[in-house]
């Protein structure tokens, strides 16, 4: 298990535990937790609070037949579900978001590629491929953006991000992430709004590429 230095904010772990995070962010949280025992432990602590809330809940009597129904169903056949396993650099939750397929990279120019895993009204999730030394176009954010490194590393004005690290960027951050030397940097990026690019051309291309 790699040692990560940039983690999921605590409020986001709480929202994940409660199930209120938008889907794209929830995939990033589940992925980071798969890679980081610190955040797995922190998530466990939030689930413990949830457990205490459950224990203290006002009890509502269940119908007479419910218990015998459930006991009768214990031997009923069921399809066991197993969490998807890691495949290469892609942890289980990413494999699930990719629906088991290989990445379908689309070129964005300058060697940068992306694969949109899903785009919904409450956010989008994509993979980014950035060659060493290459910058992702300078961009601000309309909402919140989480970027998790799956391979290689990148650096920007706020620090260096290696495998497992998550950068959390909001409206206030204007940054230029540059992939470090070595392996191409592959990231999982989630937003709750479309990105806006500062340069004119990428902005015109934005509807086309949905970045």
């Amino acid at each position: 298990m790699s040692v990560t230095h940039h983690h999921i904010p605590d409020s986001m772990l709480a929202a994940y535990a409660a199930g209120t995070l938008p889907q794209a962010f929830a995939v990033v949280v589940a992925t980071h937790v798969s890679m980081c025992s610190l955040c797995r432990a922190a998530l466990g602590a939030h689930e413990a609070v949830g457990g205490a809330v459950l224990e203290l809940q006002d009890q509502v009597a269940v119908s007479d037949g419910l218990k015998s129904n459930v006991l009768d169903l214990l031997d009923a056949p069921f399809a066991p579900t197993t969490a998807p396993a890691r495949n290469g650099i892609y942890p289980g939750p990413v494999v699930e978001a990719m629906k088991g397929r290989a990445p379908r990279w689309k070129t964005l120019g300058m060697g940068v590629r992306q694969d949109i895993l899903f785009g919904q009204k409450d956010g989008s999730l994509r993979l980014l491929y950035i060659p060493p030394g290459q910058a992702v176009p300078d961009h601000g954010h309309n909402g919140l953006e989480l970027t998790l490194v799956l391979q290689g590393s990148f650096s920007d004005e706020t620090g260096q991000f290696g495998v497992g690290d998550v950068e959390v960027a909001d409206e206030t951050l204007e940054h230029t992430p540059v992939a470090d030397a070595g392996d191409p940097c592959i990231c999982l990026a989630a937003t709750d709004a479309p990105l806006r690019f500062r340069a004119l051309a990428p902005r015109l291309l934005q509807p086309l590429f949905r970045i």
Partner: protein
Amino acid sequence: MTALDPPDNPPDGDPGRRPAARGPRRTAPDHAACAPTLSRETQWMMAVRDQRDRTAFAALFDHFAPRLKGFVIRSGIPAAKAEEVVQDVMLTIWRKADQFDPHRAQVSAWIYQIARNRQIDVMRRDGRPMPEELREDPGTEPDASQILAVEQEARQLKSALTRLNAEQRDVIEKAYLGELSHQQISDQTGLPLGTIKSRIRLGLNRLRHELKDLKP
């Protein structure tokens, strides 16, 4: 650790309980050696997991089903559908019992995440993406002191919740029942929820220690 305890927070565990140095092997026919010190819920859950004990499962049902029903209704699922969710959660407890690890989670915490998953499945198109599962090596001996520590933290957390004033407790309940967005939870940082936070921090170190040797 005692030094970190908030002064208004006396230990509320049973003073008669002392962690055993080491429990019996998990494959032993019963848990009698450590059973007197573990909570009923943990004993029931381990009996369900290890012996597929239906009597223990029925006891878990009696304890949790009415709480789950209250929890599910409060989370916004219509009363008519609530029992369906309770039934699904109870069946999942039975079917996924092998994933219960008392070294890492108290029974109510484990059931909480099952209940939230089921509710999310009911309310949304997409299920919640889950982290990779960690597995203990088969034949790992249970460490009674670790299990007891997890239980004690859960008890203290529960007790800390009951000591909050009504407004503070309401915020916590809303957050963990899924009534607050991430932004709303994030905005609550100014609220005096220090007791809960210090409880979470105490539990963290222990969980981190427990997790460090486990791999997916």
